[in-house]
């Protein structure tokens, strides 16, 4: 079920009526959330519900066992079980085909002819998100940073909570789980904020992202596009993926607010970043902090000397790239950002102190060049295509429809650019995306425009969010 579809609107209306009506025991509310979340998830394919339930039950059991056990060896075994269970699930459904094909390619190079793959494994939607969420739960208990969930129902609701189930934000149990054990307050400010976030998120998805998507499709689909089309197409994709994913995160946060829950901020105007490190502090924050806390630190972080720190950093980004998809161009994208972080680290070490305004502008421009070239690698679909697009940057031929491409990009990219510009002027861009610019009474006009534009571009079926495929 997609947020931007008619069926979801009906589902949400029905759910909210029930939710507001069942005010009473916590178990009723959480039971309703679990039932609704499994319905929401099972709408894609009811068989996938068993994976979600299996992953949840495994980690709930491991959490309990970790709490009961004091022996370090036994605790390691329990954690190992959780890691093995979740990573096997992820590995099989998401990466098995990729590694099989890659191995077959290597074997073919050395003279073996393995059997070609005729089967296809379906990728369960949201699997990368909820396995990371359940893993963080068991790791936190193992690290004694939190206790195990007292109620299975609370835990099931935490893992399956439908607003953020399929594309995050990847919630930490320490933040979200306790909310299922408390009375939630549905306030006037919370509801108004929720509606504002949902409207803003829907606008980003339905109006901005879905209208930029065909531009990127066109630019990346055409044979020998030439530099202007590659540049405009890459810009379109960079703005599209932001609007798509930040839009989803805003809708998720807004829905949670309507129910009285709080989800984490996932984006902080990423295209204001003045360096690659800052970009990752602003982009998909719930993933970047997850990778930092559970992968980078587990690898040793910066505790084992500068050389090892660099290896850990690079490896973390490489695996972060692979998390996005089972393909080598995602690994290349991760490596690109890993290299960027290493270069920034070395650069920063040599240049302490404040920088001039001009230097900050130059740093921002350089960062955007870096980030958007990264989007070219990300969107290309294969390393071969990324190379041909890169070579195509030398050809400055302009197609007859180049003006139409530029006009579409300007109009549909404007809300993202304008939002960043306003946020950059206010509070030096430190505010989160959802804080929004201070518009006063104009907010109503803006919301009216958003609502009308959403209606204008609304499709009954909805188009999937980009991050669903990860």
């Amino acid at each position, binding site marked *: 079920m997609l947020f931007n579809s008619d069926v979801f609107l009906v589902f949400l209306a029905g759910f909210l009526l029930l939710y507001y009506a*069942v*005010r*009473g*025991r*916590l178990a*009723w*509310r*959480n039971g309703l959330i679990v039932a609704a979340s499994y319905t929401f998830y099972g709408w894609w394919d009811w068989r996938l519900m068993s994976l979600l339930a299996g992953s949840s039950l495994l980690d709930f059991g491991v959490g309990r066992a970790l709490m009961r056990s004091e022996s370090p060896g036994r605790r390691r075994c329990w954690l190992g079980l959780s890691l093995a269970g979740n990573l096997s699930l992820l590995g099989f459904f998401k990466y098995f085909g990729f590694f099989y094909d890659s191995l077959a390619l290597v074997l073919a190079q050395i003279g073996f002819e393995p059997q070609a793959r005729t089967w296809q494994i379906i990728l369960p939607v949201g699997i990368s998100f909820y396995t990371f969420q359940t893993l963080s739960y068991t790791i936190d208990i193992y690290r004694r940073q939190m206790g195990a969930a007292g109620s299975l129902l609370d835990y099931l609701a935490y893992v399956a909570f439908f607003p953020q189930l399929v594309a995050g934000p990847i919630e930490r149990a320490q933040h979200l789980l306790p909310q299922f054990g*408390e*009375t*939630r*307050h*549905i*306030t*006037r400010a*919370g*509801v*108004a904020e929720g*509606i504002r976030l949902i*409207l803003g998120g829907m606008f980003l998805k339905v109006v901005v992202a879905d209208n930029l998507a*065909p*531009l990127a*499709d*066109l630019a990346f*689909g*055409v*044979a020998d596009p030439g530099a202007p089309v590659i540049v405009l197409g890459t810009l379109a994709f960079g703005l599209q993926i932001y609007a798509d994913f930040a839009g989803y995160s805003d809708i998720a946060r807004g829905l949670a607010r309507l*129910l*009285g829950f709080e989800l984490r901020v996932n984006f902080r105007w990423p295209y204001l970043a003045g360096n690659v490190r800052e970009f990752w502090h602003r982009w998909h924050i719930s993933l970047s902090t997850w990778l930092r806390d559970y992968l980078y630190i587990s690898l040793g972080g910066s505790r084992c000397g500068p050389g090892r720190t660099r290896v850990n950093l690079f490896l973390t980004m490489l695996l972060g790239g692979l998390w996005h998809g089972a393909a080598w161009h995602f690994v290349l994208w991760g490596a690109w950002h890993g290299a960027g972080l290493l270069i920034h680290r070395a650069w920063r070490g040599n240049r302490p102190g404040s920088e001039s305004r001009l230097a900050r502008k130059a740093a921002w421009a350089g960062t955007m060049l870096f980030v958007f070239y990264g989007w070219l690698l990300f969107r290309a679909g294969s390393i071969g295509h990324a190379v041909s697009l890169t070579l195509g940057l030398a050809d400055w031929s302009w*197609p*007859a*429809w*180049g003006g*139409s*491409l530029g*006009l*579409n990009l300007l109009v549909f990219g404007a809300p993202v650019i304008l939002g960043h510009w306003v946020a950059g002027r206010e509070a030096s861009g430190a505010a989160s995306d959802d804080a929004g610019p201070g518009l006063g009474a104009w907010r*109503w*006009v803006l*919301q*009216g*425009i*958003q*609502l*009308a534009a959403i*209606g*204008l571009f609304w499709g009954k079926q909805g188009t999937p969010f980009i991050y669903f495929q990860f």
Partner: protein
Amino acid sequence: MRSHDYQIRWADAVRAAAPPLAAVALVAAILHLGVWIGVWPRPIPALDVDRTVLLHQAAASEVRSEAELIFVGDSSCLMDVDPRVVARATGRPALNLGTLSHLDLEGQQRLLGRFFQANPVRGQTVVLLMNPASLRLWPEAAWPSSILDDFYARRDPIGHSSGIDRWLGFEIVRARLLGPAWPTPLPGAFGQRYGFTRDLWRAMSAQGGHLIDPRRLEPGSIRGSTEYSIAAVWEKGGRLFRSRLPRGIRLAAGFTPVPVSLTDGDLDRRGRDLLRQWAEWLEADQVLTGLPAAWGDDRFATPTHLDEEGAREFSMQLGIELGR
């Protein structure tokens, strides 16, 4: 412990939702008022390939034209006939009004009717060209005709949209503001060749209404029946078509070629028989029997459309045939 409590009243919720809804209602009222007093542009919902082609031809039919040869027909007429090449071969200005969608003969007749309202009858020739595969059935899609009707009546295409779209004026925005002016990206091969609706429109205008099919036929991929027949319903349709042409207009009828792998080796004779039968029903003044019935698969973009090179060559032969 209670599951949740409310620190909000219904009045608060209404107060939060009312201003944006009121803003939307105001915009809708302005849109409808604009239609009522006639300040918005004419509705031209050219939002995809089919509608852009159909509406381009409808708009072209209303313009003053020097054309003496007017081509109408199915999508093979649109894709296979370059009127500039025909004009060079015959020395007579030509215009292609072929459409991509399944417009029936009544729809073709409406295009021609408009054309002859805008242009005086002075002995022009209408050339009706179809792919023989199109004659097996009568096209039954109703939407191309209703788009034409809406266009000529300067009506918003609201008959096809949902109630909310209609009330809130979304169709007015799509048809009157976005459609004519806004370049909407095209998907697939058409997108890669023409980019956007506005560019497709311009390309058609520059090519006298002709469109090059940008697709590529994979060798060996052609599938289809090698049996050609003409449905009986074409008799009534054909006679009606002829009867509605203004007096003094000549009618020529012909077939566009099919790929050789979709023939059973006897299409030359069978095709000529079919064409004569059809031309008889149409009471055609000229039967274009000299056109090639089948061509090599490598000249086709799809099983019914020639590629750019093929279209140029066919147009040349068509010009010679029309000159006879």
